[in-house]
């Protein structure tokens, strides 16, 4: 009976070790995930980081404006006289600074100092925000609420499917013939982009290639497009590219197939997919529409779901 106890103990230790082993992996991941800087000086690397920064900047601007309400009221009273300056795309901070300068005599020295400092900071923030919006046009519609630098009623048409929209990870890669492909250019050029993840030795994936090619032709007429991402070809593996091309040719698939680095955002995204084939529908601003479709579209159920998402995206794009 003593033996039984020893075994039970050994078993328990094994269990704990098993859990601990898995636990460390998670911690590693979390450590990697955190550490995103938030200061003004940080250069965002991805659209998501840009979005975070964008929101933070606007928060800061809001905070400044709500800090000394009475004083700001005074400034705003003055602006009414100047009028119509916000309309043209001038920096809001500069505009405020101008107003403050014009009405200089109305404030005490202390008030004037503070206002000058604040308006300059707002001006800096506005510059940074404008720069971000230019670089990552997609963040415009994502940070909608409470955003004062937004033109009203611009882009509320895309219906959020279930809560928030998820961005398709940005990438800069190449197609199998070596031409550069950038995700933002690709997505913004299409009303809808269907992204199919596959790999060369996956039978159901290869089975749907000709159907996907037909879908690509159909989409091209509607201003959409389809690309394939073969997980074997990531990082530009030459043999994998040759094999993928061979299979695509045999199946008569002529649409663009893209690869990028496996350690980038889109690379990580690809590696985290563990059911193949998986197909995503992406709208013009790079948002993933609906849930990914798992399984080949040669199946009726999958084909119908995909068509529904495509139609929905095209309709939203026209609205």
């Amino acid at each position: 009976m003593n033996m039984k106890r020893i075994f039970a103990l050994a078993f328990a230790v094994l269990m704990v070790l098993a859990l601990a082993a898995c636990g460390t992996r998670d911690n590693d991941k979390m450590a990697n995930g955190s550490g995103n800087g938030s200061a003004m000086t940080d250069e965002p690397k991805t659209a998501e980081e840009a979005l975070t920064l964008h929101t933070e900047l606007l928060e800061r601007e809001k905070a400044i404006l709500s800090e000394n309400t009475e004083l700001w009221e005074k400034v705003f009273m003055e602006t009414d006289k100047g009028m119509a300056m916000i309309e043209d795309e001038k920096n809001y901070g500069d505009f405020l600074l101008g107003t403050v300068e014009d009405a200089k005599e109305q404030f005490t020295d202390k008030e004037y100092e503070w206002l000058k400092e604040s308006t300059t900071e707002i001006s800096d923030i506005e510059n940074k925000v404008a720069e971000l919006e230019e670089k990552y046009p997609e963040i415009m519609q994502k940070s909608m609420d409470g955003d004062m630098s937004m033109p009203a009623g611009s882009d509320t048409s895309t219906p959020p499917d279930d809560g928030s929209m998820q961005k398709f990870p940005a990438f800069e890669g190449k197609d199998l013939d070596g031409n550069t492909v950038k995700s933002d250019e690709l997505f913004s050029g299409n009303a809808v982009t269907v992204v199919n993840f596959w790999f060369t030795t996956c039978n159901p994936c290869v089975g749907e290639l000709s159907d996907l090619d037909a879908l690509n032709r159909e989409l091209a007429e509607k201003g959409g497009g389809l690309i394939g991402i073969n997980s074997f070809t990531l990082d530009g593996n030459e043999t994998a590219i040759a094999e993928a091309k061979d299979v695509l040719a045999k199946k008569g698939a002529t649409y663009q197939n893209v690869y990028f680095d496996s350690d980038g955002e889109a690379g990580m995204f690809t590696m985290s997919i563990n059911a193949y084939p998986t197909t995503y529908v992406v709208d013009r601003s790079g948002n993933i529409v609906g849930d990914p479709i798992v399984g080949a579209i040669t199946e009726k159920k999958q084909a119908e779901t995909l068509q529904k998402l495509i139609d929905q995206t095209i309709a939203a794009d026209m609205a």
Partner: protein
Amino acid sequence: MGKKFSGVSQTMSRFRGWIQAGATLLTNLHLPNFLKGGLYQGAGKTVCVPGLNCYSCPAASGACPIGAFQAVVGSSKFSFSYYITGFLILLGVLLGRFICGFLCPFGWFQELLHKIPTKKLSTKKLKPLTYLKYAVLLVMVFLLPAFLVNDVGMGDPFFCKYLCPQGVLEGAIPLSLANAGIRAALGKLFTWKFSILLSVIVLSVLFYRPFCKWLCPLGAFYALFNKVSLFQMKVDENKCISCGKCARACKMDVDVTKTPNHTECIRCGMCIRACPTNAVSFRYGFGNGKEAPKKTTMEESK
């Protein structure tokens, strides 16, 4: 070489349940993945585990040898799975169907089900069905995936796709519970395989290890090596009193004294514990244990 361990044999077979539990856990180490609904995709997955354990189990630490064999033999790049066959032959020679009795998670699953107290039925009269698993191995694991190929030269993993209940139990069910995309992808094939799993579950309650006896291609492969495996059953003819208790205790329907290393023997050791004179034991090493002492005496007499 050829050392025998009657005491060890007794202990091993007594604590077999714990060894099976430990092996199942080691085969499926990444337990948190059950909640995430994803798979572990690290380096461990390039190696096969000894038992029948689905690659697509979220927790799986390695690949299934049967699944891997079909994937390679069915791919357009390779004509035969040399590495996996070699690995299986090695395991067959080192351990044989000891893997079924001690290390296979699906074997353990069936045994646990068999502990549910109901009327138990004998499988002695269903002996011809035991040859079915060789057909499954040859046809579904080798011939169909290798030769029934599409225009690009790819075959389907027929056993995994159409028959394997372990794939549904460990892969489809937990993944579809945690992952909406996979849930949406379930179709007729899932219904078919789910009914196979249900049948195996019901049969396991009534019979002892029905899947191992009749269908398992991995068991069939290891069975071919039972006679030559280094892990052997040994009956000491000097101690044996021919009481027949071992044959009655054997749930795999083996007549232990006549054919101790029968293809159906999974080395569970029930006969070892049933033997009143400790004549039956495990044995590890070359030769069949009977000739070994004779040989040495001959060599000594030279």
